[in-house]
């Protein structure tokens, strides 16, 4: 294990390459890639790497394709061939890729993709907003939101094991906030290849191209689609248990334990809770610390795994809550924050859940912004429609 000063873009590429090299004695590594700000540095680092084995034979291939749609298609083809695959994208790149994002999940291919969360255009904005990956909520992929560079690196390794598990066999999306992480350097522990090899079994995709010719992607009749969706839903339902196994294995190999699907902070006896995703959670924690010092019973939850949605964990963790603020760096127009609308129902009876839409388009989320909404939450007798913080301070 070495400590390196890495941006989260480079942390992601480093993790993907390690996972890929760990599959060298099976079908190797690869993916299709296409640049888009603020993700380009990730795929550029992969393009600089050499995946030739000690015997001079190629163990990987990064295909520089002509669009995101093709990038995911190349991953699909490679994964079907049994290769451990990776790509990265962002914002409108994800939007363009979407058709194949769904396809990858329907084909049950354990592709891992890193997404840098960036505002969807037009008008064009390159800063953080979670709306781009939340748009893929229903695509059948697992989704994870990271809080720092180490978590990005770890989660990419972690999700390969989770995705390739035979009980799961689903693609995984690992998300990080534009610029706040993608272009910020942090000390990051990079494991040795042997450790990664120990953590990640060789990929053995049951439906890869081998010796029994079949054609995938045919036509489904209604009852067949029902069965396929049922299988897909069952795979999603299997994730929490496999997740815990992966946490144990990760800890054993790397000496660090990845966070739970929902990460609690100072939750014992908390009656007021702030729920958030991504880097906002760090700012929330600073506000919680200050409030705790004043003797207030506040705590925080960070949703790390968004798909499958951790309903059971949230229900448990929110059991003692009286007031909950859900922070959304996204807006589903015509409804409100996506995290908020997903979380509804996990709260206990008589608990007041208020949605705050904040930091859209990369707007700053500062400690006093969080304090303001905490004050607002405390002063409420009833919930109101989701509050858009920038325009209604």
């Amino acid at each position: 294990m070495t400590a390196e000063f890495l941006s989260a873009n480079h942390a992601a590429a480093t993790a993907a390459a390690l996972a890929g090299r760990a599959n060298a004695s099976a079908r190797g590594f690869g993916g299709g890639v296409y640049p888009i700000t603020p993700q380009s540095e990730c795929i550029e680092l992969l393009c600089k790497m050499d995946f030739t084995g000690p015997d001079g034979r190629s163990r990987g291939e990064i295909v520089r394709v002509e669009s995101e749609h093709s990038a995911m298609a190349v991953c699909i083809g490679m994964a079907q061939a049994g290769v451990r695959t990776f790509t990265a994208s962002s914002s409108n790149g994800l939007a363009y890729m979407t058709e194949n994002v769904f396809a990858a999940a329907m084909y049950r291919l354990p592709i891992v993709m890193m997404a840098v969360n960036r505002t969807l255009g037009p008008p064009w904005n390159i800063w953080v907003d979670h709306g781009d990956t939340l748009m893929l909520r229903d695509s059948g992929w697992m989704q994870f939101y990271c809080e720092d560079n180490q978590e990005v690196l770890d989660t990419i390794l972690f999700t390969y094991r989770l995705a390739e598990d035979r009980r799961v066999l689903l693609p995984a999306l690992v998300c990080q906030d534009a610029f706040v992480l993608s272009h910020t350097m942090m000390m990051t522990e990079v494991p040795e290849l042997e450790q990664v090899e120990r953590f990640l079994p060789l990929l053995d995709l049951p439906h890869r191209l081998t010796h029994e010719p079949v054609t995938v992607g045919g036509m489904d009749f209604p009852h067949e689609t029902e069965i396929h969706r049922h299988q897909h839903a069952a795979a999603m339902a299997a994730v929490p248990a496999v997740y815990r196994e992966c946490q144990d294995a990760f800890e054993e190999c790397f000496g660090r334990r990845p966070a739970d699907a929902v990460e609690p902070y100072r939750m014992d006896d908390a009656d007021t809770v702030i729920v958030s995703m991504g880097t906002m959670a760090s700012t929330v924690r600073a506000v919680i610390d200050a409030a705790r010092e004043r003797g207030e019973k506040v705590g925080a939850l960070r949703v790390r795994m968004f798909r499958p949605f951790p309903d059971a964990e949230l229900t448990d963790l929110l059991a003692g809550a009286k007031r909950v603020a859900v922070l959304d760096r996204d807006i589903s127009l015509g409804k409100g924050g996506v995290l908020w609308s997903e979380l509804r129902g996990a709260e206990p009876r008589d608990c007041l859940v208020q949605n705050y839409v904040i930091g859209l388009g990369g707007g700053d989320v500062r400690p006093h912004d969080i304090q303001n909404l905490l004050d607002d939450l405390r002063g409420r007798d009833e919930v109101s429609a989701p509050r858009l913080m920038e325009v209604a301070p």
Partner: protein
Amino acid sequence: MFGLKSDWSLELPERYFTLEDYEGGVARWCPGCGDLAVLTAVQKILRDEQQPPEKTVCVSGIGCSSRFPHYMHTYGFHGLHGRALPVACGVKSRRPDLDVWVATGDGDCCSIGAGHWIHATRYNMDMVVMLFDNAVYGLTKKQTSPTSPRGLKTNTHPMGSWLPPLDPLCAMLGFTNVSFVAQTVDWNPVHLHATLREAHKHRGMSFVRILQRCPTYTAAVFEELQRDPSRLLLLKGDDNVAVDPAVMKIFPNQAEHDPSDIGAARALAETGSQGEKVPVGILFRDASRPCYEDFTMQGLGISAEDKLAGLKRELDKFAV
């Protein structure tokens, strides 16, 4: 009779447009970027033709070059990466009265938007398509594009790009219903202006590939062409781009080329794609190729009387 007062009065147009009438925001391209020359050329053409700014639409995709509409004081549409052409087709299909200019990069047009490129050519709507070919993805900071020459070191090919580059002229000359293909260079403003003017005059989709310097990322790519004009081949002839004899002198290599000869055009494009005798001028023009508008605009100018007569004819079918 000569000398009468009425003879002195000038016919003053109601509106007269100067260059400033076409100037939008201050261009934020790098110093020395070839895009600046194209911007000036287009503004001059519009001024010369007194094209009302509100009757002009500049459509682009995404890229440095696709910032073009922001710098024009016409209608502008800065769209999605790769999607300039279908948006322009949408505008043109229902507003044939508008003058449509498309600004697209080699990534925007030949990479992510390549599918639309083939079909827009086939639709052949009346518009000017300017391909700003700097042989690199500029806006995203130096990745290989389909037109990057072999060996170009970029952030996606740090050891040098290895595939043969796509030649947009060869491609265009193979697409169904192609009607106008020209090539020019940003560093010869006279030829650039004259070529774009010919493109503007043509009815149908006029495709102009502009070899465009990017001093920041691909300074070396066009350096030799710029320094050594003998690598260029000026296409001339009655039906080709006409430039001042003084400007023609700059080109040691000149050839008569009849733009109606698609075989000759393909041969020129093929030779040029090898980097020798890079043709500048009109390679191909055929005004008789059908335009989309020819089919869809039929009857748009129909009079109220004719409409009523038609309606009456239809209703008469139900007479008992």
